């Protein structure tokens, strides 16, 4: 998942910085940009490179901690990361800070208790979150090393930490970075997003102890602001009905509807639906059987950055048979679900 493409190639910047036909100011600007771009690239890629390197040399076998530390930082509406440390964040009077601490810890518990995984990297890395990022910032993201949450504009969105599925989603991007290392475009990008939605919604259901019939399968339901609600929207994405007209980001439902260059938040619709259909058909709690298959497909194999959705579908079909030999209905459910979306 390392980034190798930047807007201005280094060689072009270096050429510009020496071009006698350019003004002194432009030559200096090109030189400065080359230096800053290089530093930014190094910073951004560091986490991904480290991930690959440690896997190669087997450092990942060493446990950093038996359970991850959870740290919360406050950006105070700036965009400098990580911000300032929030002391005793679990009991902070800042509700965003205490909620982020509580839900991040809960995600760590979810991965530990349900899947036997110790933190994002599997060996206990600290889970670091920055809150109050930017001003009226309508986003949450994983930047390769930590989670980042905006407060929303209180119109379309409210505080992004208000959705426990959002927190589960972002942390799962970290898990994917440390396992399959999926790219963020094409089939792999859609899978990357789908896995975050699947584990994000599983976490939400696990916290509420819901079975598949009582869950709403909505992503982003709890972060919609008053303007979005007034207009009749109920969520960002609906895993049970990706084309839901009440979703802010309605998605395709068939693999064949995915178009080249489609944003991963839209191409994740078909695999989201396959997960939902599998869970509904198997019944019970989503994390008990189908979730276990998806987790094994994500974490039990070498990195596959450019994985196709069909490869992932075939892997889950095979795992369903291997993991539940006494319950063939599970493999049938998974197979039928993928078939329904065209894979």
């Amino acid at each position, binding site marked *: *998942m390392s*980034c*190798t*493409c*930047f*807007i*201005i*190639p280094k060689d*072009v*910047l270096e050429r*510009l910085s020496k071009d006698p036909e350019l003004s002194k*100011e*432009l030559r200096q*600007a*090109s030189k400065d*940009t080359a230096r800053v*771009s290089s530093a*930014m690239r190094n910073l*951004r890629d560091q986490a991904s490179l480290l991930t690959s390197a440690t896997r190669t040399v087997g450092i990942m076998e060493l446990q950093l901690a038996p359970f991850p530390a959870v740290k919360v930082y406050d950006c105070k509406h700036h*965009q400098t990361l990580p911000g300032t440390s929030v002391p005793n964040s679990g009991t902070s009077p800042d509700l965003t800070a205490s909620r982020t601490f509580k839900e991040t810890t809960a995600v760590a518990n979810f991965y530990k208790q349900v899947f036997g995984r110790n933190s994002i990297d599997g060996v206990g890395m600290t889970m670091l979150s920055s809150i109050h990022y930017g001003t009226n910032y*309508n*986003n*949450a*993201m*994983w*930047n*390769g090393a930590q989670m980042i949450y905006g407060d929303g*504009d209180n*119109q*379309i*969105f409210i505080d*992004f930490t208000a959705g426990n599925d*959002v927190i589960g*989603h*972002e942390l799962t*991007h970290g898990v994917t*970075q440390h396992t399959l290392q999926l790219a*963020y*475009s094409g089939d792999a990008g859609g899978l*990357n997003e789908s896995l*975050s939605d699947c584990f994000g919604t599983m976490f939400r259901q696990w916290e509420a102890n819901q079975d598949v019939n009582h869950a709403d399968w909505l992503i*982003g339901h709890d972060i919609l602001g008053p*303007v*979005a609600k007034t*207009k009749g*929207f109920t969520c*960002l994405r609906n895993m049970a009905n990706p084309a839901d007209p009440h979703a*802010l*980001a*309605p998605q395709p439902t068939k693999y064949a509807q995915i178009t080249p260059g489609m*944003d991963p*938040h*839209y191409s994740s619709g078909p695999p989201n639906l396959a997960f939902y259909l599998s869970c509904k058909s198997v019944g019970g709690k989503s994390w008990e059987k189908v979730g276990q298959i998806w987790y094994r497909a994500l974490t039990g194999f070498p990195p596959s950055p450019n994985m196709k959705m069909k490869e992932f579908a075939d892997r889950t079909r095979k795992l369903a048979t291997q993991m539940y030999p006494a319950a063939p209905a599970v493999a049938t459910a998974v197979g039928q679900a993928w078939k329904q979306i065209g894979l």
Partner: protein
Amino acid sequence: MQNHDQLTIERLGGFGGFGGPHLKSKGELSLSGLSAEDLRAVDRLFPGDRQVSAPKTDGFRYRITRWSGSELQTIEVSEEEVPPFIQSAVKDSLE
């Protein structure tokens, strides 16, 4: 039709998938209203050899368009590469 003094900006992606049918984030700047320093920052965004920078997980991307001579130039870059005065020119909306 975009006029020659205009820089048009669209913010895309993010957790919500801005740029889809409902979630929009757009803005524009008048180039003649920018300082010399800001104009240089705009120029640095539009190199001769244009490339699309790789998106980050749930990160925003910016699609920026301007006139260059007789043709429209469009780039798409990740948020960290966009100067703050361009980032703050967009406004999120629902359609």
